[in-house]
């Protein structure tokens, strides 16, 4: 009698562990699949600063896509500066494409402020004057307003992240279905 109950419980627990594993793995599959389809390292980014207002406000989510088409002036791109991990969303204002190698050099600018320099070179690494194609993560093709605030809050106040994960874990364990 006792053994049958114990074996039922073990089965139940194993079931839950496996379904949890399935959820996590399918999320990972979707993320990696998005990375392949869009051709960008990070297909979804959160806008962190208000530099592109009134278009994109802090807390918006941007969907990126990177295609082989050459990048031209006027496009909104997300790029990484050498040595920094935080992606920046700005607009391309200058493009120079060399004859022989086809190498492109860009200069970008935020939409909001008209600074005297006319571009955002101050943000680049020391000594870096231009951006090249390998710095660009992707072009912005779609956006969702306000949803990114969840990520911003979780990054700035990690306590909330732990609370959420703890609560979710509790829910999974105590649910009977």
């Amino acid at each position, binding site marked *: 009698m006792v053994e049958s109950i114990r074996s039922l419980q073990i089965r139940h627990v194993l079931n839950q562990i496996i379904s949890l594993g399935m959820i996590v793995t399918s999320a990972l599959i979707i993320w990696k699949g998005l990375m392949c389809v869009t051709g960008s390292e990070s297909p979804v980014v959160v806008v962190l600063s208000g530099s592109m207002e*009134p*278009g994109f406000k802090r807390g918006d989510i941007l*969907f990126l896509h990177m295609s082989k088409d050459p990048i*031209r*002036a*006027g*496009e*909104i791109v997300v790029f990484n500066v050498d040595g920094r991990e935080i992606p920046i969303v700005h*607009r391309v*204002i*200058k*493009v*120079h*494409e*060399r*004859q022989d190698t*086809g190498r492109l*050099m860009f200069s970008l600018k935020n*939409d909001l402020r*008209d600074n005297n320099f*006319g*571009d955002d070179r101050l943000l680049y690494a020391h000594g870096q004057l*231009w951006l090249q194609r390998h710095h660009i993560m992707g072009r912005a*093709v*779609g*956006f*969702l*307003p306000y949803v990114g605030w969840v990520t911003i809050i979780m990054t700035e106040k990690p306590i909330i992240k732990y609370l959420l994960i703890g609560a979710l874990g509790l829910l999974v364990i105590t649910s009977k279905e």
Partner: protein
Amino acid sequence: MHSFGYRANAVVTLAVTILAVMCSMASLSDNFNVPSPTAEVKVLNINWFQKQANGNDEVMPWSSSFTYFKHFGHPIQPFVAMLYVLRYTFYNRHVKVSLTVNISADLSSLFTWNTKQVFVFVAAEYETPQNALNQVSLWDGIIPSKDHAKFWIHTTNKYRLIDTPGFFNTQNPPKKSKLLNGLNIRFTPSSISLLFLHGC
């Protein structure tokens, strides 16, 4: 069966589904819109400035001879203006140039339900011996709504006309014929059409 959680779940699912359907309809209906924007750029004047020793900018006396508009009664052809600009800054490094332009446009046909804003810019597109394509932005502006879509602006260029280093050097001077053929000021409105309806 009819617990609070169950009902909340059902309501939220229905709301999100309806929202998603509405947003995809709005973005699909964008394909039916055929935009017909019109725009015109007139270059009125080329201003030459020279830096004085104390750092002040001095308008060169002979820049008044280039008030083409006053002399000839019609604005300069944009590509001729660019040619003057590039050629004279090549020969005089310490001379700075700015263009005075008239920009008029009617972009109201670009605004649909799916349009968030229209970003408008004037870029100079040209070819040099070193670079197959150069695009340098001279002026840009944001049009937030259809009310502001028809506009007329008299302004100087917002951004300086600078080419990459290595173009203006004595070993590789710009080829005149290539400049003339490759220069044109292209007015490209680009509208941001977004996947999800904004403001619904």
